[in-house]
């Protein structure tokens, strides 16, 4: 086991003793660390196949577990050791769903930087495969709602509805979803910055263009916040998009 993958063993399975005597033999010193064996109760080989059958996950079986992806991953290196794409692929192929579920709280943390996909010597689309694993898990009801999924859905909803996104709406809409009480005008139901409850940093950030009298910028963004920019002739295409998403089960 590579040193950087110590996190794969749960702390409660690692036994460390000052003095250890086994069958009358003193094995203290180098041998004072024991990893208790893991008990596998159940596995489901269909899980890996299900990932394989999605368009994103079709490269999963090319993985030969070299761990290039994990050693490149910024989330693994700088944030949480438990985020380990190689291991997710391993577990998915073995169908060890309960082990995957234990890691569901970090699995969504992928920032889509594509270092893994980029460096994979076998051409596995690692980022897509991990997302596909998460997808299949969500489909089977194995993961709880996680923040990035909420944001993804919120974003996609905006795209499908208007054809284009608007930064102000995204920002304030997301802040509202976080539980801040954003003030909205009664007629158009658009958020009004400065009046309602917004985080301090956002308030200061929105004040900046006002302080520097950047009229053009303010007018443009205010206009976009009032009248959402949209793509022309969108309704027919929107209908098709909704139908496709319905088929994929992405709407619920």
């Amino acid at each position, binding site marked *: 086991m590579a040193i950087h993958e110590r996190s794969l063993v749960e702390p409660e399975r690692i036994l460390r003793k000052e003095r250890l005597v086994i069958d009358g033999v003193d094995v203290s010193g180098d041998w004072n660390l024991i990893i208790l064996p893991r008990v596998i109760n159940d596995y489901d080989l269909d899980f890996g196949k299900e990932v394989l059958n999605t368009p994103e996950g079709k490269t999963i079986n090319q993985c030969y577990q070299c761990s290039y992806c994990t050693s490149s991953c910024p989330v693994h290196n700088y944030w949480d050791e438990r985020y380990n794409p190689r291991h997710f692929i391993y577990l998915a192929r073995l169908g060890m769903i309960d082990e995957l579920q234990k890691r569901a709280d970090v699995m969504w943390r992928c*920032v889509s930087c594509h270092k893994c996909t980029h460096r994979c010597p076998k051409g596995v689309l690692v980022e897509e495969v991990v997302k596909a694993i998460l997808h299949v898990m969500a489909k089977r009801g194995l993961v709880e709602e996680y923040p*990035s999924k909420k944001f993804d859905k919120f974003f996609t909803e905006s795209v499908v509805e208007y054809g*284009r996104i608007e930064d102000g709406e995204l920002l304030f809409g*997301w802040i509202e979803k976080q539980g801040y009480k954003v003030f909205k005008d009664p007629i158009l139901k658009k958020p009004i910055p400065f009046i309602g409850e917004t985080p301090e940093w956002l308030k200061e950030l929105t004040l900046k*263009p006002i302080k520097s009298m950047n009229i053009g910028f303010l007018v443009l963004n205010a206009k976009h916040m009032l009248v959402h920019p949209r793509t022309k002739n969108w309704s027919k295409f929107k209908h*098709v*998009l909704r139908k*496709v998403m319905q088929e*994929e089960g992405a709407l619920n």
Partner: protein
Amino acid sequence: MGIIGKRVAYYPGCSLEGAARSYGVSTKIVAKELGLELDYLEDYNCCGAMESKNVTFMGTMLLNARNMSLARKQGHKVIVAPCNGCSFSLQRTEYFLETDKAVFDKVNALLREGGVDPLDQIPQTYHILEWFYHEAGPQKVKEKTRKPLRGLKVANYYGCLYTRPHFYARTYAHAGGQDEEARPRRRETADDDEHPYYMNALLEAAGATSVEFEPMHTQCCGGPHSLSDEMVSEKFVMMILQTAKRKGADIIATECPLCHASLEMYRHRLMMKGVPDVDVPAAYFTQLLGLAFGYSANDVKLKDNLSDPLPVLKKLGLA
């Protein structure tokens, strides 16, 4: 030179017509100066960025295929996108359309159903930096420079998806497999994947000095999680800004509106928390090139940058 073509379809992306209009405006200025022609993609839609692809696979394919279809309608074989996210999305779609016949057929059928012309040919997508480098190049930038950015130390921040993954476009073979020939290959015009240098070259041609910024030049800024996973994004941005500052950079040059917004937003938040060495402002590389070409700070909309690079540039007599 001359691999991509001087006249291309220009897919600006939603951001460049809203919060990142400074990038849009300065991009047009630079393209005009370099003698390149951007053909605005009429009535485009959002590419789905890094978010939609996690929700719906086919939906994201469709969103991008519609843009491709519009480009074909305007008679283009090449699309240029100034945003890392947009160019990635289009290249990803290109990859799946090229490698998976079933996806291609389904997308075409659905496009027809949605009232859009189906794709007769899949247009290729390039990042605008790649295009500038190959169609104009540092030599041309040098010729056009009227006010060199002398003394400006720039940290060139490329972000993730400019170089990665190197094989989402123009490989035409399925990734991996046993066949050595079919393995993913880099496309011809692509920047060096681990040590990108196109932006360094262009800005150095305009008189700026690049600081040593590896490996943070391609470090993630939090990207699609900059709103939904604040702790991780904050840490990543902190690492980028501190490295830039400690390497002596006056300014960070960016080439993606999402990275730029993320850097500026978290710079502000980190400064509010009192984190040291994070006060490097950010500017789009096109803004800096615009300044070098003799345009005023107002022309390239430097005021729009919330991190306010004006004082730094004024101190050096560049704006």
